[in-house]
C-alpha cells in the first residue's frame, strides 16, 4: 500500500470529530450505503407506481419499467450514501460548506481506497485496480466462449447465454477496462507530469471513479435478469436490441450511461487540468506526449460520448416506452441507430488508442535513451487523428445499406488516417535508431505494441478498401483486426504503462523476470490465438456464432487451446503485481533515469505531489544533450507554496 511520508499541510482547521453511535449511519461511508440504496429503491418504485396509478395504466406494478427506473435511482443512492454529493448538496441547499480539512485526501491505510477520496494518486490506483478486476472477469467470459467454440455444435452453454457472453465480454473490455484503465494511468501521472498538486476538480474526480463499479456491476448483473444477459452484441444494433431482447438489454443501455458519464467527467477534468494547471514554464510544446495524448483523447471523449448516450436512450425508449425511433413499421429508421452509434464508436477506437500512443512515446524515449523523433509532428499527428476520426464512422457500414455514394468518401478519409498513424510508427522506429536500448518489461511491451499495432493497422487497410470490406465485414477477420488493435495495441500499452509507473505508484519495484515471462507468454499466446482468425474470416466463418461448420473445427480447437494459454499468462501478471506491491524491494525516486517531472519526486510522491513548485526550463526528452534538464526546483519557492491557497 502507498506509504504516506508527508504530513497533511496545516490549514488551521481542526477536523470534525468522527461521529459515534447511531450517528455513524448518517456519516458518509459504507454504513450509509445500504439504507440509502434501499431508500432510493423505494423512491424509484414509488414514482413508477404513483405515475401508473394516476394514469390508470395496468398493471400498476410493471417489472420492466421499475427495473429501468431503479437502474437510475439505486446507483444514485449508492453514490449519495458513499458521500459523493455531500459537499455540493450542502452548498446547493445554502448550508455553510465545511472547510476543506483534507481528511479525504491521500491514503493512510488500505481502507482509504474504499471511500470517496480526492487524491488523484489514490483515484488513479482505484481506477487501475478496479479496471483490472473487470479485465479478469471479461477475460474469463472470453474463456467460456472459447470453450464453447472449441468444437462445432453446442456443448456448454445455450444460444442465449453465448450471445450474452460475447456481448458482456466486449462491453466490459471496452467500457470498464480499456477506456478507464487509460483514465486511471492518466489520473495518476498527468498532474505529476505537468507539475500540478492534483486534478482541477478533485471531488468530481472521485465521483467519476465511483461511477465505474456501478456501471460494471450493472452490466454483470444482466446475467441475473430474467431472460438472460443482453445478447445483441456490444454494438446493440436496433431493432434487434430494441424490441427483440429480454429486460437484460436495459442493463446494457444504462450501464453505458454510467460509464459514459464517468468518462465525460474525467475528460473535462483532464482538459481543465492540462489547460490551466501546468507548472510555470510548461508550455504546450514542452508537454510530454502522454499529456498531449490525454488532451486529444479528452477532446474526443467530450465531443463523441454524448452520441452513444443518445443512441442507448433511443433504444431503451423503444424497448420500454414503445417509441418508434428504430421501428420501421411506424416510420422509424433502423440505419439511424448505426449512424449515431458509430459516430461515437469510431472515435472511441481512438479514445482507446491515443493514450496508448502517449505511453509508448514515454517508454520508448526513456528506454532507448534518445529524444523522441519529431516531437512536434508526433503531437500534431495526434490532433490530425482527432479531426479525421470524426469523418470515418460510416466505414463500419459499407454493407449496411446506407447511401451508396457515401462509401467512397468514407473509404478515402479512412485511408488518410493511415498517414498520421504511419508518422507515429516511423517516428518511434527512428527514436530507436542508434539509441542505447534497455529491454525492461515496459520496453518489451512497447515494442510488442508497435509490431502488433502495425499488423492491426495493415489489416485495417484491407477493411478500409470497400470491395475487400464487403467480403470480410462481420466475419472473424474483423474479430482478428480489432483484437490486434485493442489487445496488441491498447492492452500492450496499458501493461507497458503499469510496469513503467509501478515503482512510482507503489514505491516498490516489480519482479523483472516475472515481467519478462509475462510479456513473452502474452505475446506468443496472443499471436497464436488471433492470427489464425484472419483466415477463418476470409474463408467464411461469421462472427458472433456459437456453432459453425465442421471444416473450421480443427483451427477453432487450436485457437481455443492457445487462448487458454493466453488467459493463463495473466496469472503471472497478477502474481507479480500482488507480490511486488507487498514485498518488492523499495523503488528509488527515478529508476529509469527519466527527465519528466513525475520522476523528480519521491516514490510514491508526497501527498500534494511537489514540496516545491517546479520551474520547467526545457523539453521533456532531452536525452543525450549534455546538462539538459526538463525542470528545476527552486528551494526559495517553498515559502510561496506554504502560503498558496489550498485547493
Amino acid at each position, binding site marked *: 500500500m502507498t506509504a504516506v511520508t508527508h504530513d497533511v499541510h496545516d490549514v488551521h482547521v481542526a477536523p470534525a470529530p468522527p461521529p459515534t453511535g447511531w450517528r455513524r449511519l448518517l456519516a458518509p461511508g459504507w454504513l450509509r450505503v445500504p439504507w440509502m440504496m434501499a431508500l432510493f429503491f423505494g423512491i424509484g418504485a414509488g414514482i413508477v407506481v404513483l405515475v401508473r396509478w394516476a394514469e390508470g395504466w395496468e398493471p400498476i406494478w410493471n417489472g420492466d419499467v421499475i427495473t429501468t427506473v431503479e437502474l437510475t435511482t439505486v446507483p444514485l443512492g449508492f453514490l449519495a450514501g458513499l458521500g459523493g454529493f455531500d459537499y455540493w448538496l450542502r452548498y446547493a441547499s445554502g448550508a455553510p460548506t465545511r472547510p476543506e480539512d483534507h481528511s479525504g485526501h491521500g491514503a493512510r491505510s488500505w481502507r482509504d481506497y474504499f471511500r470517496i477520496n480526492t487524491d488523484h494518486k489514490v483515484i488513479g490506483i482505484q481506477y487501475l485496480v478496479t479496471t483490472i478486476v473487470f479485465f479478469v472477469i471479461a477475460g474469463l467470459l472470453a474463456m467460456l466462449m472459447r470453450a464453447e467454440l472449441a468444437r462445432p455444435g453446442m456443448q456448454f452453454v445455450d444460444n442465449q447465454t453465448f450471445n450474452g457472453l460475447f456481448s458482456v465480454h466486449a462491453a466490459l473490455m471496452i467500457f470498464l477496462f480499456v477506456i478507464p484503465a487509460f483514465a486511471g494511468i492518466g489520473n495518476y501521472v498527468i498532474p505529476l507530469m505537468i507539475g500540478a498538486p492534483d486534478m482541477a476538480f478533485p471531488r468530481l474526480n472521485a465521483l467519476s471513479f465511483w461511477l465505474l463499479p456501478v456501471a460494471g456491476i450493472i452490466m454483470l448483473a444482466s446475467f441475473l435478469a430474467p431472460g438472460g444477459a443482453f445478447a445483441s452484441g456490444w454494438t446493440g444494433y436496433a431493432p434487434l436490441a430494441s424490441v427483440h431482447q429480454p429486460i437484460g438489454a436495459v442493463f446494457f443501455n444504462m450501464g453505458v450511461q454510467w460509464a459514459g458519464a464517468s468518462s465525460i467527467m474525467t475528460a473535462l477534468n483532464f482538459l481543465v487540468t492540462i489547460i490551466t494547471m501546468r507548472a510555470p514554464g510548461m508550455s504546450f510544446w514542452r508537454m510530454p506526449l502522454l499529456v498531449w495524448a490525454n488532451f486529444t483523447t479528452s477532446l474526443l471523449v467530450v465531443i463523441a460520448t454524448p452520441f452513444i448516450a443518445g443512441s442507448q436512450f433511443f433504444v431503451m425508449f423503444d424497448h420500454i416506452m414503445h417509441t418508434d425511433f428504430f421501428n420501421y413499421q411506424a416510420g422509424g429508421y433502423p440505419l439511424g441507430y448505426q449512424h449515431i452509434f458509430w459516430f461515437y464508436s469510431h472515435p472511441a477506437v481512438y479514445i482507446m488508442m491515443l493514450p496508448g500512443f502517449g505511453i509508448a512515446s514515454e517508454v520508448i524515449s526513456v528506454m532507448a535513451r534518445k529524444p523522441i523523433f519529431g516531437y512536434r509532428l508526433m503531437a500534431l499527428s495526434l490532433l490530425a487523428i482527432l479531426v479525421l476520426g470524426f469523418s470515418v464512422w460510416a466505414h463500419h457500414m459499407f*454493407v449496411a445499406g446506407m447511401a451508396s455514394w457515401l462509401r467512397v468518401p468514407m473509404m478515402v478519409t479512412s485511408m488518410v488516417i493511415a498517414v498520421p498513424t504511419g508518422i507515429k510508427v516511423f517516428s518511434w522506429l527512428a527514436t530507436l535508431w542508434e539509441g542505447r536500448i534497455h529491454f525492461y518489461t515496459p520496453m518489451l511491451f512497447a515494442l510488442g505494441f508497435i509490431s502488433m499495432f502495425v499488423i492491426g493497422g495493415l489489416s485495417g487497410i484491407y477493411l478500409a478498401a470497400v470491395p475487400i470490406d464487403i467480403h470480410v465485414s462481420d466475419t472473424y477477420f474483423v474479430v482478428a483486426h480489432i483484437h490486434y488493435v485493442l489487445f496488441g495495441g491498447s492492452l500492450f500499452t496499458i501493461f507497458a504503462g503499469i510496469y513503467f509507473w509501478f515503482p512510482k505508484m507503489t514505491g516498490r519495484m516489480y519482479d523483472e523476470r516475472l515481467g519478462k515471462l509475462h510479456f513473452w507468454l502474452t505475446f506468443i499466446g496472443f499471436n497464436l490465438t488471433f492470427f489464425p482468425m484472419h483466415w477463418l474470416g476470409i474463408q467464411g466463418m461469421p462472427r458472433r456464432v456459437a456453432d459453425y461448420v465442421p471444416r473450421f473445427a480443427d483451427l477453432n480447437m487450436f485457437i481455443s487451446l492457445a487462448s487458454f494459454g493466453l488467459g493463463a499468462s495473466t496469472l503471472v501478471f497478477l502474481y507479480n503485481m500482488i507480490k511486488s506491491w507487498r514485498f518488492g524491494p523499495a523503488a528509488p525516486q527515478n529508476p529509469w533515469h527519466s527527465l519528466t517531472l513525475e520522476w523528480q519526486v519521491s516514490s510514491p510522491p508526497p501527498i500534494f505531489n511537489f514540496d516545491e513548485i517546479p520551474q520547467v526550463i526545457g523539453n521533456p526528452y532531452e536525452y543525450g544533450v549534455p546538462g539538459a534538464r526538463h525542470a528545476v526546483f527552486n528551494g526559495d519557492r517553498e515559502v510561496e507554496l506554504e502560503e498558496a491557497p489550498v485547493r
Partner: protein
Amino acid sequence: MRRGSIAQLVGIGIVCGGVAALVAIFVPWLPDPASRQAGRIDFVFWFVTVICIAIFALVAAVIIYALVKFRAAPGEDMDGPPIHGHTGLEIVWTAIPAALVTAISIVSAIVLAKNDHIPHASAAANAEPLKPLVVKVIAQQFAWSFQYPAFGNLTSATLELPLEKTVELRITSLDVTHSFWVPEFGQKQDAVPGSVNNLAITPDKVGHYPVICTELCGLGHAVMRSRADVLPAQQFLSWAKGQQKKLGGPAGASGKAVFANNGCNSCHTFRPAGATAKVGPDLDNLKQEAQRAGQPLQQFIHQSIVDPNAYIEPGYPKNVMPTTFSSLPKAQLDSLVAFLAGQAK
C-alpha cells in the same frame, strides 16, 4: 549510417518480406471465387497485400536491426545521440504512405463501381441475355427465402442461379437486420427491415455454396444458413418450371414444400421433413406439446404459427419465433397445418 549497416538492414528486410510473402502465397487465404465480383475483389486483395508486405518488411527489419544493434550493455549508463528529427525524412514518410493509400483507394473505387454495376436492357436491344435476373431475398429469424418474380413469384428456400448471368438481388428483412453473404461470391449486403438493398452477382462457376447470415440477428443466428446452387442456364430453367408446377395452384401447395420454403427447418426438428435444428421446440413431439397447452392438435399448431407467443413451450424463451408467418396465404397455411398435424406422432 555506414554502407554495411544499410546492407544488413536490406538483408533483414528481404528475409522478413520473403517470409511474409511465403505465408501469403502458400496458405490458401481466399475461397475459390465463383463469381465475376469475387474475382475482382481478389485482385484488390492481392494489390493491398503486396503493399502491406513491403511495409511490414520495412518495419520488421528496422525493429529487428535495432533490437540487435542498439542494445545497451547491462548496467550501462549512456545516452544515445540527441537526434531531434529530420524534416526530409518526415516529409518522405508522410508522402509515401499518402501515395500508397491513394493508389489503393483508386483501385478500390474502380472495382466497387464495376461490382455494383447491373447491366439493364437497353431499349434498342431488348435481348434476353442482357436482362438481369431479379431475385427477391427475404430474410427473417432465422431463415432465408428467395422469390423469383420472373417465374410467377416462385419461392424457394435455396438460392438457385443460372451460370454467367448477372443476378440482381433485392434484399430485405421482415424483422431485424440480417446480412446476406456467400463467401465464394465475395458479395455481402445487409437485409434491413423496411428497405430494399440491391446486390449484383454474376456466378461463373457451377457448384453449391453456403449462404450465411453475418449480422447478429438473435438466438438462431449461427444456424441461419442456406445454400446457393449455380446451375447451367438450361438446368436452371427446368428447375424453375418444375418448382412452379409443384407449388402451382393453391390446392397443390403441399405442406412439406411450404415447410421447407419458409425455412421452418432452420430452427425446428421434424423428422418427416428431414429437419434437425434445435433452436425451437422439437416438432416430433407436437402431440405432447398440444396436451401441455391444453388445446386440440390442429388448433394448437395453427395458433403456434400465427401467434407464437400465445403458448411458450417450457424451456424456450419468448419472442424468438417470428410472428411474420401470420401473413402466409391461407391455402399454404392450411396445408402446413395439415402436414404437421398429419405427420405428428
